């Protein structure tokens, strides 16, 4: 029996050696990748975003990058530069000035996808921004910005979306404390669209959208704080009844501590930088 086993092992070895003798013929790559055609805008985006911050700005349509359940269109090419200048000033530059390029470059999203319109949902909501996998921020409605880029309200609405989505990116990399979810645990609702600003403030939320779920609540609390001046934030708080105001302040403290401890972001200092940037964009001072 032992002999038979040896024979089998030897034969298997011979077989293995024999079958290994076949030669693969390596030829030139079948892929012929031509040099990409870069427009002036492409070169400017490369020099302004890719080289310094490793952020790719996608403005040309690639359906694989988009949410295919909505009817969407790409932005108008001639309107892209003005929009991303605002993004750089009111978003990227503020974090760079606050904590330095070396700290924020690794946590910045790696892609900014721009779309010409908002995403209209069947429930009546319009999606204005989205964060994906800690790496990508989708910014909708870019074409509208072109026509209203000197309006403080318009600039602020886009700045709000940017910082809101960036908060998701940060949360996707380091989770925020569970304590936040326990502040208003039973007030979250899927039908937040039906809630008024007044209802939201009464229930301890900065906006109706924050009532959707804790992640949105966290991002809304952060972005609503940093995109408002001190007076505007106080006005928001004063519009809330005492109980709602206390809940919002409690949430803000959790957000503030998380940003400080996890990312070394001083929210008051960031707010001052954002306010200055919004003013600069509004007045064309850039």
């Amino acid at each position, binding site marked *: 029996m032992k002999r*038979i086993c040896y*024979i*089998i092992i030897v*034969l298997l070895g*011979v*077989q293995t050696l*024999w*079958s290994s003798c*076949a030669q693969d013929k390596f030829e030139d790559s*079948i*892929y*012929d990748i031509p040099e990409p*055609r870069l*427009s002036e805008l492409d070169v400017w985006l490369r020099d302004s975003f890719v080289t310094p911050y490793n952020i790719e700005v996608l*403005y*040309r*349509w*690639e*359906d*694989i990058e988009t949410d295919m359940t*909505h*009817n*969407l*269109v*790409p*932005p*108008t*090419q001639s309107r892209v530069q003005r929009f991303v200048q605002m993004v750089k000033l009111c978003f990227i530059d503020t974090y760079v000035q606050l904590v330095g390029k070396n700290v924020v470059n690794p946590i910045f999203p790696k892609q900014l996808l721009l779309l*010409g*319109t*908002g*995403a*209209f*949902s*069947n429930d*009546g*909501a*319009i999606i204005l921004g989205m964060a994906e996998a800690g790496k990508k921020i989708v910014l909708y409605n870019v*074409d509208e910005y072109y026509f209203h880029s000197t309006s403080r309200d318009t600039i602020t609405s886009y700045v709000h979306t940017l910082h809101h989505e960036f908060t998701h990116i940060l949360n996707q990399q380091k989770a925020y404390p569970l304590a936040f979810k326990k502040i208003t645990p039973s007030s979250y609702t899927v039908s937040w*669209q*039906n*809630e*008024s600003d007044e209802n939201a403030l009464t229930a301890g939320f900065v906006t*109706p959208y924050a009532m959707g779920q804790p992640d949105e609540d966290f991002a809304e609390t952060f972005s609503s704080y940093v995109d408002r001046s001190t007076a505007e934030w106080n006005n928001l708080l004063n519009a809330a009844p005492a109980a709602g105001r206390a809940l919002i302040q409690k949430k803000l403290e959790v957000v503030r501590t998380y940003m400080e401890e996890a990312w070394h972001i001083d929210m008051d200092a960031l707010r001052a930088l954002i306010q200055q940037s919004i003013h600069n964009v509004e007045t064309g001072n850039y």
Partner: protein
Amino acid sequence: MKKREILWLLPLLFLLARCTVKEDYIFEESATARIKAYITACEATITKPEYGWKALFEPNKQSLGGYNIVMKFAEDGNVRMVCDFLEDETTSTYSFNESQGAVLCMDTYSALHYLADPRIPRAGVLGVGLEGEFEFVIKEVTADSMVFTGKKWGEPVVFYPAEERDWTGRMAAYREHIEKMAPQEDSPFFRALTMNNTAVNIVYDPPTRTIIYTYSDNVSKEILSASTRVYGTDEGVRLSPEIRVNGVVLDRLRYNQSTRMFEVSTPGVVGALRYSNTPPFPFYKSLNMLRERSTFACTPRIGSLSGNITGILELLLALIGGHSSYMTSELQLGYRNLALAGMKQFRIIWDIDGEGPWFSLFGALSFAAMDDLYYSTSYKLNMEILRDDEDQVRFTWANEKQTDNAQFDTNMSIQAGFAAFRLFITDPAGFTIVPSANERFYLVNLADSRRWLLLSKE
């Protein structure tokens, strides 16, 4: 002995396993190399014609007309477009990619994207647009044509080489003729298209390029409606499918610059399209058509959810004229006024507890408070049928009302919009009830047809 026999078989098996299967490739090159070569050929073809390519886009042959476009593709990745639905030429970029085979993609906003833009309202609703395409799966490429199917909606489209005239005047002529089809401001409501000895009343919808026409059947006297799609031509417009009424078939109209009128240009048919203050024919028993199978007729709802983004957008849409296709301009102001005060919908209810009709307003105590539970206030009307054809009526106020919230009733009744609607409905001249498609009916003032309101059965 048996084991040895089995052992002899083993080397045989190994020998068989060693034999490599000879693979005969159908193609000499890999799939990747072939599709690259195909795209290179497509790039060469698409940039070749001196005046580029022209195409007729028909996004939805059930509910949308045709949109013409001319495109010149440059080797640097830019594409210029002129079309019959936008005034200005657009310049954008294009590229080829591989997803469902080779795909041509207009990758930045162009005239084609206008047709796919969800901001273009369709029947007052945002989000769908005109079902346009800007990515095309390449099906066949020759020097004389490029055949595609739209990647999103799947409709076929063919590009043909364009001529110089397509750029210098043809698209502008198409656009002008299409625009001439749109109802002229302050024109009478009725638009009679005469066709030999018969006539139809047409209502043209500019964004969708469709016509709904209504006619009286010669034999049964029944009032019937149908729709057709409109396409710009050098001379005027083409209609597809053709209008077939009482044995007459019509598919073309020519615009006469001197008379400023569309005239029938289908051989063997004489007629023209004219505005008229009076109905072209009796809309026989249209009142019964309006009342049957539904207890009420109403305006479109506004603020379908509480004062959220949808409601605000709907209101904005109303403010910029998005509801202009539902009512005459004098009512639009009143409609906005009532909507801002909390009105969601205006209705004519045929029967409440055996009595009616009623002029009813539904809504909430404020615009911001609109939700699915809302109040109503109803004012009784007397209705008089004005002729035997039962298509003309007059309403008068009966000084009787029902309400489930006194505050809502007060909020509504003090609005200027309420007075505007009340005066409109109770105009002593009365109305012609004009059937349209999709269970919709126009109330058209008998003395001045420029005053009208579109109601839907629900």
